[in-house]
């Protein structure tokens, strides 16, 4: 699967995250998080897992996180990726 267009999912509420996608040649994940120091690596691992599960091979994924738990990350990334496909 390839990110075909810019898309967005999520909110800025505490314990949520905003996910932005855009097309690009490689696969890139950029994470901004208020808890990056403690949990940045776990957020990245979760995002990578979702992208892998959805077979996303190309695109830029920008995460703006406010301490979301992993199932929220899973849902938001999935929603943004699906929105990056449809009409």
């Amino acid at each position, binding site marked *: 699967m390839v990110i075909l267009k810019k898309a967005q999912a999520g909110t*800025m*509420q*505490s314990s949520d995250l905003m996910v932005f996608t855009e097309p690009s040649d490689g696969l890139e994940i950029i994470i901004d998080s208020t808890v990056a120091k403690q949990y940045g690596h776990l957020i990245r691992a979760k995002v990578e897992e979702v992208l892998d599960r959805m077979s996303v091979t190309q695109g830029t994924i920008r995460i*703006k*996180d406010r301490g979301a738990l992993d199932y929220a990350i899973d849902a938001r990334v999935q929603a943004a990726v699906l929105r990056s496909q449809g009409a």
Partner: protein
Amino acid sequence: MPSAIIWCTMISYLLTDSRIREARELLIDSGLDFDPNFDIFLGYYEGGCLIAVGARHKNVLKMVAVEPEHRDTGIFAEIISALVKDAFQAGYEHTFVFTKPEYSQSFQYLNFRPLAQTGSTAVLEYGYSIQDYLNKWKSIVRQGTNSGIVMNCNPFTFGHRYLIETAASQSDNVYVFVVEEDSSLIPFSKRMELVRKGTEDLCNVHILSTGPYAVSRITFPSYFLKDADKVTQEQLKTDLSIFCRYIAPAFGIKKRFAGQEPVCRLTAMYNDAMRKSLPENGIEFVEIERKTAGGRIISASSVREMLLCGETEKLREMVPEATYKYLTENTGVLASKNATPVLNS
């Protein structure tokens, strides 16, 4: 039995005068000014009462206020979230906010990044950051005692060329930042192309764009209004602090060059601000006497004037070949663009 009260909350666009008047009161109560320049205005209602507002003009969020008793709740995040999503729908993924320094932290909690701060204003950005911009140009970073020039080049003249040549002879590398804001007669991509063509023989000169980070609608809005009276020291400080804090260190810039400005008051004020604040940040400011042709200072504004008056032959001694060719081949398009209300600079 206490009866259940259902607090219906919703965010909606404020479209009528009476709703905007209500928003205006909330702003004034919060010590903020109402600014009639906005594309959309959002209100957050709880049980029919307006408790938070926020507006957007292009990619700038403004007039954000929350009723005092509802601060420290999620409502601030709610309204900013709605503004950012609305901006995204409108095609702006990179948003900015101007706020009071004491509110900077509240925005940082939402992952906004601080960009500049002066005594009374903090500027923050969301979506992309200046680090993304600097990373994009990493490949042209060279070691040495380098110089920077910020120019609009509307269009590129022998005057610009002279300034770049002078800087190139006094520096290891020169970075020419072409103003990206598309508010000028000649479109950005063309201005950039003509600067590239006009300097391709100078091997220590590198051409790049300013992004929104120098002389832009964000850093220096009054430049595009052409109203010298509206220039505030805050704006000049914001623009130059971004240059000193981020741009100069990333490119090893030790000197900034500019042409003297005897005509345009606005540019003269910008030069005055550079003369004062750059040395405070360890950057030398070098002002070069303007190049003349036929006893007249070469300036982009006089070139545009000649072009629009049909005096194309006079352009020969003012602009390089590539610019001359572009101008003479596009006179009609440029003249009609000039007739519509496009801001010149």
